[in-house]
């Protein structure tokens, strides 16, 4: 795990450092002279060999670092230093921690919504397999799955906000300052995310439950005289839960890295918007920092999913 995290910093750092393009050239605008570019290059530490740059980046993660220490205005970046955005004149970590709550709120709300809707609809379809209820649920799932999220998002804004005026225009507020405003803002983005993912979870849940239905222990459960509801939820769903948990863990981690389209549509200042802007502005330290953060989420999600296997399946626990 530690080794993986280390390799992650190496890959991410070199990926973006070795990219074509000269960050120093981007630090000054039209009034640039070669002398200013060179001065900035030195200030950013970009004139060091690549390995030295990496070493400074890596040690900065733990000890913090100071940019251009020999200049009259050194820039201090506190540990854990993910870098410093010279475009925005702020530490990357500060930018990320400011955007993260928005993304977490978006991802968690959508996650809960899609799990509840997706799994219950999937069970419902499995119970009515082959009948019209099953077909209609799966039909809706297919439509939801194939609709692009920007289309759903724009339609929702157009009808719910602009045409029918049911909700005010989405405007990010902290849930601690204005809970009602927070819910009013987040409900549509949550729906957009949930529609996309719930469709997938409906199909996954339905197929898992139906697959387990053929197993001998389901027949045993029926032979015990358990109600069909218990057979499906306690026995069939429980046995088919592992792939659902795996998918849910990784999907949530991916979303924590920012839902770029959804955040852009609803102008939510989350990690996704931040990532888009950093790319547009070629803000290398920020891109590196965001990528590293996102990748770390995925890595931790993998670890948690692995640990959950042990909780879910007693056979894994012993092994």
């Amino acid at each position: 795990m530690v080794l993986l995290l280390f390799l992650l910093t190496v890959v991410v750092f070199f990926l973006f450092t070795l990219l074509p393009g000269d960050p120093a050239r981007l630090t000054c605008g039209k009034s640039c002279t070669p002398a200013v570019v060179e001065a900035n290059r030195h200030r950013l530490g970009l004139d060091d060999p690549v390995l030295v740059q990496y070493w400074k980046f890596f040690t900065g993660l733990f000890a913090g670092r100071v940019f251009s220490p020999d200049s009259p205005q050194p820039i201090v970046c506190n540990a854990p230093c993910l870098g410093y955005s010279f475009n925005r004149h702020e530490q990357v970590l500060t930018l990320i921690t400011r955007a993260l709550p928005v993304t977490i709120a978006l991802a968690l709300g959508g996650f809960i919504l899609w799990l509840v809707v997706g799994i219950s609809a999937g069970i419902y379809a499995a119970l009515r397999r082959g009948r019209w209820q099953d077909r209609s649920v799966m039909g809706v799932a297919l439509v939801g799955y194939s609709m692009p999220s920007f289309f759903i998002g724009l339609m929702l804004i157009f009808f719910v906000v602009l045409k029918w005026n049911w909700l005010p225009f989405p405007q990010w507020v902290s849930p601690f300052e204005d809970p009602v405003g927070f819910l009013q803002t987040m409900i549509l983005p949550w729906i957009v995310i949930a529609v996309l993912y719930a469709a997938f979870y409906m199909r996954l849940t339905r197929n898992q439950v139906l697959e387990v239905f053929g197993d001998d222990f389901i027949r045993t459960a029926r032979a015990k005289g358990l109600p069909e509801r218990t057979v499906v939820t306690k026995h069939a769903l429980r046995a088919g839960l592992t792939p659902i948990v795996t998918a849910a863990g990784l999907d949530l981690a991916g979303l924590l890295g920012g839902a770029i389209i959804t955040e852009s549509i609803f102008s939510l200042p989350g990690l996704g918007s931040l990532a888009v802007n950093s790319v547009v502005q070629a803000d290398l330290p920020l891109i590196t920092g965001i990528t590293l953060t996102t990748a770390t989420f995925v890595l931790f999600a993998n670890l948690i999913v692995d640990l959950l296997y042990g909780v879910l399946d007693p056979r894994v626990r012993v092994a």
Partner: protein
Amino acid sequence: MSQESAAADQSFLSVKDLSVAFRTEDGIVRAVDGVTLSIERGQTLAIVGESGSGKSVTAQAIMGLVDRKAATVDGEIWLDGEELLGLPPADMQRLRGSQIAMIFQDPMSSLHPFYRIGDQIAEAISAHRDVKPAAARKEVVEMLKKVGIPAAERRVDDYPHQLSGGMRQRVMIGMALINSPKMLIADEPTTALDVTVQAQILELITELKAEFGTTVIMITHDLGIVADVADEVAVMYGGRLVEVGPTTTIYASPEMPYTLGLLSSIPRMDKELPKRLDPIPGNPPSPINLPPGCVFQPRCAYVSRVPGDRCSEERPELLPTAPNHAVRCFIPGEERRQIAHDVLAVLAGDPQ
């Protein structure tokens, strides 16, 4: 389902003209066709036949485990004065696990891999009775002791994968008997087990049957184990009964060539046989495409004993040949008994 027909039949379990037909893409599969059976209270009936003979489907129909959406089930099943096939699903569900219980062929896959065995048995209790968890657990431990699980107090918290096949089948038996059902159906309970364990499991079933006064249907393809456990034997072939009678009669004077074939297929260690095992040639018939006439006719060695092509043209009836003994065969009774006599003599090792 009138009251008179219930009263007319005093048997504890009586199956009348049971037919189960599955609709499949290839056509209608008549897995069970016109099976009529009865068992007295406390007796053991063995249903014997090869794979695909319809014995397991018969059992599942009695348990109400046949999916009515996928299959049509016709006939009547009377258990202790109650007709089961006409019961609403909720009532049948109440009977399952409390009045009729079942154990299955493969104990490795018949227990849920993710739940502790104690909890799985306790679930059978709470499905039918209002018992507090602590009391249920006590009851489960008692039952585990009864089915011969060593260190039951500790084992009750084990997961199925921590137990051997024989132990798991003991757990299944305990789960089936926990509500003291009137009727136990054992669907090839020993097939998946080691030979040494097979004998133990059979002995356990026999013991507990005596203790609980349970009526048992034992489904098996192995005539070798039937003699020890069953009072009555019903031989099935191609979804039909071909011979029914008391166990002693079936062993001493079988009349249907298929039963003879099954008896000849039992390996014997105690006698030096004059010839090697005598398997029945060919394969069981496809249930979609049953041969016309007698279903066993394509594999029968004695077709020539019946004049003309009667065996391949006409379906024989299951007819009584002696009290309690019925046979489905066109060969005349006297000749059948002679054939059986000769075959059994060879099996017994004194060739004439």
